[in-house]
């Protein structure tokens, strides 16, 4: 280890963002289903959300003046690191029950781990995030483990 992750960064491991509550609407499912070219009636009718619908559902709805010149809102749930270029890594989702119109979901994202690795072109820092999505009654809906790579 060359020590890219200092104690202040390491202290972030285990931190969670405040839970986000979102309400699922049939129309939002229908729009998503059309735009992604779904073929199944249950998705096109909005009776059930396609599995990747969750990705859009949890994106922040930020005021326009908080968007950068690239058109995206800063999502900076990460510690100060000596490397700056952030890339999306892989994602793994575990599904416990379908998402349907009217669901009110509570999502909590936790920074689960920070690891330094040696890449082919230099050092890399891997940030592992865990997302837990439940109903308001605490029924588990989806879990996700996602990786961001910083280089």
């Amino acid at each position, binding site marked *: 280890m060359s020590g890219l992750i200092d104690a202040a960064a390491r202290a972030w491991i285990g931190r969670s963002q405040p839970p986000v509550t979102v309400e699922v609407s049939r129309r939002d499912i229908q729009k998503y289903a059309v735009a*992604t*070219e779904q073929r199944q009636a249950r998705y096109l009718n909005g009776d059930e959300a396609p599995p990747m619908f969750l990705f*859009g559902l949890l994106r922040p709805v930020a005021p326009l003046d908080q968007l950068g010149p*690239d*058109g995206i809102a800063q999502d900076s749930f990460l510690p100060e690191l000596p490397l700056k270029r952030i890339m999306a890594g892989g994602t*793994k989702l575990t599904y416990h029950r379908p998402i349907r119109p009217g669901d009110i979901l509570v999502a909590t994202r936790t920074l689960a781990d920070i690891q330094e690795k040696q890449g082919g072109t230099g050092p890399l820092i891997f940030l592992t995030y865990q997302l837990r999505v439940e109903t308001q009654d605490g029924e588990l809906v989806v879990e996700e483990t996602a990786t961001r790579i910083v280089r």
Partner: protein
Amino acid sequence: MNRISAVKVGATLPERAYTATNVSLFLYNAAIWNGHRIHYDARYTTEVEKHPEIVIDGPLQGDWLSQCVLDWLGEDGDLVSFEYANRRAAYLGETLTATGSVTAVDAAAGTVTIELGIRNEAGQIIAPGAATVRFR
């Protein structure tokens, strides 16, 4: 109707080709509330972020992989887990094909594991993935 007893390791799932358009990408990014200009503003995309063309969203390719599984499975089972990673960019004008093949069958558990991939026109797998489904 799929029965797990008829599913064999090595079997391929039906492929589907997707050719995103300016309109489909705009609507997708509106639906997921993503304002990133590389998905609809050609001049910004080439001049500022130096891509050769409008970029096809990575998570959209992930969705197409999930469709490969669910259109094969239909209502005969449930998606248990799904994973993918975007390894290489794809651009407006490219046709991308969602592919899958069965890598494991656990008849006792009722589960089938599938390897997935988005293949570009050059034959490269630009977004590999995997899924596990459970038959009812």
